[in-house]
């Protein structure tokens, strides 16, 4: 049964009415001319008349046919792969997340999927979608060929991505709606893991008449040990210096596991350690690497463990050289500059420049203290409007009061000389988080000899308070940035904090918070996530040393390190699998996916266009265009000055 991909174009067939109308409207010429005698015409026309009349009808038919054929060609007629209206149409969704590759049931699930796919036939057209992330990779069209479906499945699995059924389910529903089948079925082949169903909106039902079937392993669940996260602790500023990396390893299985973890820097193994992890336990370990050159490098951690999923046993990090950011800082009003010492000690985390107009405009962070003049205040206001952050170290000067007033903060003169300590600290805040479990030199023992009384605007956040209840450290949002106000001069006349061990980590955490990047990725991406490639032309996958050109959106399909190159610039990016997939985390027994099925009775089957593939219609298209061409040429030959 021929179907049309774009049936609306058949309206073009109405164009056939044009020659017919012309035939009736213009059948008779209107021009009348005298002629001396019909002596020669009469004998000619007697012969010609019948032939001419016949020719006119042929021309009319040719013209009409040409319109109809063109309309039919543009409507893309095709024969679906099934000869008659199918009894049932099936969409098979294969959960292509990496948890499906778990050893206990991967082969079982594949066999079950293949069994369903091989049931496809002319009366049971089937389409297959491999679900990874929010998207599904689809076979182009419904087909009755089981082999084609099986080959598509074999080519796509196992995937390294994560699973989410919401988008795939809706797309499957839409595809089924286009099929003129009596029964419509969605079959999901999944490992009964909870994760893919988290995104599904159960309030949105499938189309009426669509049934849902879930194929799961006979024994769901798996034993897995995985590296769930890793973080570079030290910036890569100098070659041959140790860079600390923290790694989180979790044993998701129900029994204790012993294994080794290897640290690799590019293609060299740096370290190997034995690890023992109790059931459901997590270990946080710190490893060190020392790159020999200040060049992009890949650090990977590999677990030598016998578990059910292999892909999450390796975790890769991108190590790209960085320069200490510019920090514009006003000079210390006192004799000992603890702040500068804290920022520049050891591994230098900031390049300090003067807090003048140029310095502030170039820097990523501004630290104001002492008596900031009008130019510095103006530049600081510009910096805030550009999204930069400012740290203000309070000082009892009129310039400082002016600055704070411009931020909506009123500050008094020094309060009474009664000593104060921290009494209330928000340890959930990023720059106090590291102190939460620290035993040494508690923050509450720091003494503040004198401090101002600050009156903060309502939108300010107080992170720490003095023992008398006055704000000690506060954050005031302003324009696109934040102003972090410390209500102390931080010199030896005001506090003993500078000589306490907590001062250096606090200042560093404070600077790290104020310098934090808005780029949520950094150089780390999940499988399937788009990687920005602006400025890069080629890429090398370090896993197999393969090169490919970059163009458009780059979505890595497999975890590992990728070296992007372009215009003499190199950048390493690391791709990891989604950590959410590693835990077995199976669905509860009472989980009912049929809640998605609509209870409204199905509508009567109406013949709609099946999912169309241009390849199907190509033969017909050419034939119709050829026939239309023949009609037009014949018309041009025959219609040479007829009275039509």
């Amino acid at each position, binding site marked *: 049964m021929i179907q049309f991909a774009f049936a609306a174009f058949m309206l073009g067939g109405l164009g056939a009415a044009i020659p017919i109308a012309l035939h009736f409207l213009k059948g008779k010429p209107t021009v*009348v001319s005298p002629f*001396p005698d019909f002596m020669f015409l009469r004998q*000619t026309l007697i*012969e*010609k008349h019948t032939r*001419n009349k016949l020719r006119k009808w042929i021309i009319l038919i040719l013209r009409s046919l040409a319109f109809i054929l063109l309309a039919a060609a543009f409507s893309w007629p095709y024969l679906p792969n099934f000869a008659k209206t199918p009894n049932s149409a099936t969409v098979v969704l294969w959960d292509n997340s990496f948890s499906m590759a778990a050893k206990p049931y991967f082969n079982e699930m594949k066999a079950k999927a293949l069994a369903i796919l091989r049931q496809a036939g002319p009366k049971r057209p089937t389409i297959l979608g491999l679900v990874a992330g929010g998207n599904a990779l689809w076979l182009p069209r419904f087909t009755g060929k089981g082999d084609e479906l099986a080959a598509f499945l074999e080519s796509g699995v196992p995937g390294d991505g994560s699973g989410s059924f919401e988008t795939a389910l809706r797309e499957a529903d839409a595809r089924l709606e286009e099929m003129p089948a009596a029964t419509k079925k969605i079959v999901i082949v999944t490992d009964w893991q909870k994760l893919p169903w988290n995104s599904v909106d159960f309030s949105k039902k499938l189309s009426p008449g669509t049934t849902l079937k879930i194929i799961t392993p006979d024994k769901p669940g798996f034993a897995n040990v995985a590296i769930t996260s890793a973080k570079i602790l030290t910036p890569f500023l100098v070659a041959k210096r140790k860079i600390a990396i923290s790694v989180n390893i979790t044993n998701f299985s129900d029994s204790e596991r012993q294994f080794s973890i290897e640290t690799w820097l590019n293609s060299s193994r740096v370290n190997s350690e034995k690890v023992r992890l109790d059931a459901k336990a997590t270990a946080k370990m710190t490893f060190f690497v020392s790159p020999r050159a200040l060049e992009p490098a890949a650090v990977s951690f590999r677990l030598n463990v016998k578990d059910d999923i292999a892909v999450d046993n390796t975790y890769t990090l991108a190590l790209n050289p960085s320069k200490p950011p510019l920090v514009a800082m006003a000079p210390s009003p006192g004799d000992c500059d603890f702040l500068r010492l804290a920022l520049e000690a050891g591994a230098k985390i900031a390049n300090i420049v003067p807090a003048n107009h140029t310095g502030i405009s170039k820097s990523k962070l501004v630290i104001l203290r002492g008596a900031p003049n009008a130019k510095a205040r103006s530049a600081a206001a510009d910096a805030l409007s550009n999204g930069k952050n400012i740290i203000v170290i309070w000082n009892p000067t009129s310039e400082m009061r002016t600055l704070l007033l411009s931020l909506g903060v009123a500050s008094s003169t020094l309060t009474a000389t009664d000593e104060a300590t921290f009494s209330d600290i928000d340890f959930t805040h990023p720059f106090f988080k590291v102190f939460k479990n620290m035993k040494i030199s508690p923050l509450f023992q720091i003494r503040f000899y004198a401090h101002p009384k600050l009156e903060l605007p309502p939108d300010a956040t107080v992170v720490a308070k003095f023992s008398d209840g006055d704000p000690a450290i506060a954050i005031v949002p302003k324009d696109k940035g934040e102003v972090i106000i410390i209500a102390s001069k931080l010199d030896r006349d005001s506090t003993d904090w500078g000589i306490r061990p907590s001062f250096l980590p606090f200042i560093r955490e404070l600077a790290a918070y104020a310098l934090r990047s808005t780029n949520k990725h950094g150089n780390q991406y999940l499988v399937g996530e788009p990687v920005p490639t602006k400025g890069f032309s080629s890429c090398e996958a370090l896993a197999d040393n393969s090169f490919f050109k970059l163009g458009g959106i780059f979505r890595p399909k497999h975890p590992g390190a990728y070296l992007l190159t372009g215009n003499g610039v190199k950048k390493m990016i690391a791709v990891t699998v989604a950590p959410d997939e590693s835990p077995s985390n199976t669905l509860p027994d009472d989980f009912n996916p049929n809640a998605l099925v609509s209870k409204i009775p199905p509508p009567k089957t109406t013949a709609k266009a099946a999912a169309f593939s241009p390849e199907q219609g190509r033969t017909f298209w050419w034939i119709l265009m050829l026939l239309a061409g023949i009609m037009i040429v014949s018309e041009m030959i025959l219609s*040479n*000055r007829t*009275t039509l």
Partner: protein
Amino acid sequence: MSDALLHSEYLDTELLSHLPGLEIRARFLVEGFLAGLHKSPHKGSSVEFKEYRDYQQGDELKLIDWKAYARTDRLHVKLREEETNMRVTLLVDKSASMEFKGPNAHMSKWDYSRALAAALLLFLHRQKDAASLGFIGSHFHGASKHSANTATFHNMMVRLHQNADDPSSDIAGSLEHFLPLAKRRSVVVVLSDFYVPPRDLKKTLELLRCMKCEVLLFHVLDPLELDFDFDEPLILEGMETDAQMMISPDLIRKEYREALKVHLDELSKLCVSLDCEHLLLDTREPPLHALGKYLSKRRRAS
């Protein structure tokens, strides 16, 4: 370029159609024709000596009187008296079809035929030949008596001032009715579009030839009749009947031209077989060679 050539070149039907009055047209035609005769081989058909004149450059050497040259040592040319013993009958077809004028012609077949007839009459009058003018069409409309005097000439010119209004055409019948009036050894000139099967003319022409008449058929046709160059499909309306015919010109042009050619060929063959002259005149062309034809006939008759 001589005056004669210039004259004949510019004496086309367009110029002729713009001349006011039939007489002026006739005069213009004849003057042009006579100028063209300067090089004509037909000059000097009379025998009677008239007078001498001085030799002029361009005169034929055979006309020089060498005896006079011997006597006077000057070159003289003998001029001869024109003959006046020819009787010429002009029969002009005045059927309605002669009024046809196509878009490419400057004058209708009727105007062309009348101009030609007037020119012939003027020419004959100047040569002192006896001429007669008659009209044919749906029937024979009669002909004037042969005469060379000026009053008859003027009468004939006046008779030419009429329309071609015969509703039908019967050339063969008209010519048959003319036969009793035909003079032996006369020249009969028929100007018509000859929409008649040639076989219908055969008998009449044979009888005329039996009377030793010289017969000239001036076949006047419009370019559109010859080429059938209609562009778009149209309805043709007969000029002598009320019949209409819807045609697609491109479809029948070839067949029409073939039918016309057959007709012309048959008419020409008939004329050749009877030693008559058949001259096809396209109204786009200057009518001078029609006069030349006539003169050729006259010389033969003399």
